[in-house]
């Protein structure tokens, strides 16, 4: 029982990370109906930047904040420079560009930082927090950080005029232009935010999986699964899906199929959801009257 509880809690911690990345995917999906295959590599690249900053002597949280800002700018620049020209291109062209981005970020990171695995610090103490023994302090801290990010995002989209404009631009670009919203920039902002959220996920997962250019491959897959389980156009569902996938992965990996088949959980979930219920289990059904 204790072991089970431990696995569930550890699952929640990684689940939070999947949730963040899934949310990043959903944000871009909602605005463009595209799934960003490079989302994981963007997060990985940002995490390396954080590593450099910490390595240069910056205190952890300063490096954290600076990384989030840099990731945001990177996201905006990528949208403006690389994605914009294929905005209205066929799906295949866009997918190819995403894959190109994945490959470029991966190889450039390998070029700059080598493929040697690096450790990445956790900002949380070694001793368990509050004397809770089922969870490491990093796991608890990661859950806390994830929840804080999710709350901030929710507040931003729900209560600020800019957040409202971004939601409007995502669902009805033409009407948005007619009220004066600069739709192109809203898309770029969306990419920036997604990249920023992804960078947090990267920094939270790096102490667990260590830092290497391929660290995000599997995690991206779990994030895909999370986004699909939750409904790829539903941010709340994606977050729930993230936690669910995290717990499933840990519990199944520990007790049922063994750790070496963990990725198969993601594969089965992705194909299963896509075939059985493409709108996800929380996918919105829009009510419209004409």
């Amino acid at each position, binding site marked *: 029982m204790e072991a089970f509880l431990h696995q569930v809690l550890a699952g929640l911690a990684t689940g939070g990370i999947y949730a963040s990345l899934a949310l990043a995917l959903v944000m871009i999906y909602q605005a463009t109906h595209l799934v960003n295959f490079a989302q994981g590599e963007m997060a990985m690249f940002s995490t390396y930047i954080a590593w450099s900053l910490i390595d240069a002597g910056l205190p952890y949280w300063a490096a954290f904040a600076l990384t989030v800002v840099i990731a945001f700018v990177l996201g905006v620049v990528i949208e403006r420079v690389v994605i914009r020209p294929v905005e209205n291109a066929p799906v295949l062209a866009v997918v190819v560009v995403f894959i190109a981005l994945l490959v470029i970020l991966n190889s450039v990171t390998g070029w700059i930082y080598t493929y040697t695995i690096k450790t990445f610090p956790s900002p949380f103490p070694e001793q368990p927090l509050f004397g809770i023994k089922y969870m490491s302090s990093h796991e608890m801290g990661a859950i806390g950080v994830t929840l804080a990010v999710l709350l901030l995002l929710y507040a931003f989209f729900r209560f600020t*005029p800019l957040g*409202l*404009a971004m*939601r*409007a631009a995502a*669902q*009805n670009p*033409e*009407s*948005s*232009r*007619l*009220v*004066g*919203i*600069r*739709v192109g920039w809203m898309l770029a902002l969306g990419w920036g935010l997604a990249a920023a959220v992804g960078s947090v996920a990267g920094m939270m997962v790096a102490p667990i999986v260590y830092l290497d250019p391929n660290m995000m491959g599997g995690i991206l897959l779990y994030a895909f699964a999370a986004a699909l389980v939750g409904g790829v156009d539903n941010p709340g569902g994606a977050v729930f899906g993230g936690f669910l996938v995290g717990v499933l992965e840990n519990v199944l990996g520990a007790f049922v199929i063994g750790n070496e088949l963990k990725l198969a959980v993601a594969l089965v979930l992705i194909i299963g959801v896509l075939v059985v219920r493409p709108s996800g289990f929380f996918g*919105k059904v*829009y*009510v*419209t*009257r*004409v």
Partner: protein
Amino acid sequence: MALLEVTQLHAAYGQTRVLHGISFAMEAGSITTLLGANGAGKTTTLRALCAMVKTQGDIRFAGERIDGRATEDIVRLGIAHVPDGRGTFVNLTTEENLRLGAYTRRDGEAVEADLERVYGYFPRLKERRAQQAGTLSGGEQQMLAVSRGLMLRPKLMLLDEPSFGLAPLVVRELFAILRAVNERERVSLLVVEQNAALALELADHAYLIETGRVVLSGTADEIKRNDAVRSSYLGY
């Protein structure tokens, strides 16, 4: 000086040319209507004014050329477009739809006041302020579209088929409010309508468009008395 002056406006969707050199003008404070049959180019004219279709020709707003500018910038000059099909943000609430109308404004307190003002015009929207806009009835969505336009505090409002698909009673109510908006707030209206009788009742000037050209213009009364218009568009 005319508020809006359009000279030799051409427009096309891809290869299909729709406007063949339309020219018209409207005075500040007036209500002008563009009449014409289905496919004459009325909607395209309105879309052309907001740079939502590729155009050639000269468009001046308050003496300034606006053709070639982006839609978002034209809106900032005070031109509100109430589009064909209403353009509702169906997944947002009624109130969020209205707040988007005031997106370009920076006078927060006045926006709150304007919100109450449009709720005054359309109390039904106030009842449904927290409701998903996609669930509103057709008439309510039209009211919402007009209100969203008003939230810009526009100088000029472009209305595309405001009566389309609405019950006669609702149309009467809506047009009364449009007249009030024009008189009280000095908002000029450019109305596109298939229902010519209705439009001529509201407007003081009218242009008749056929296959992408203006074929007749005058005051609403003159147009009403024109025999060709009477037999083709008014049906008496």
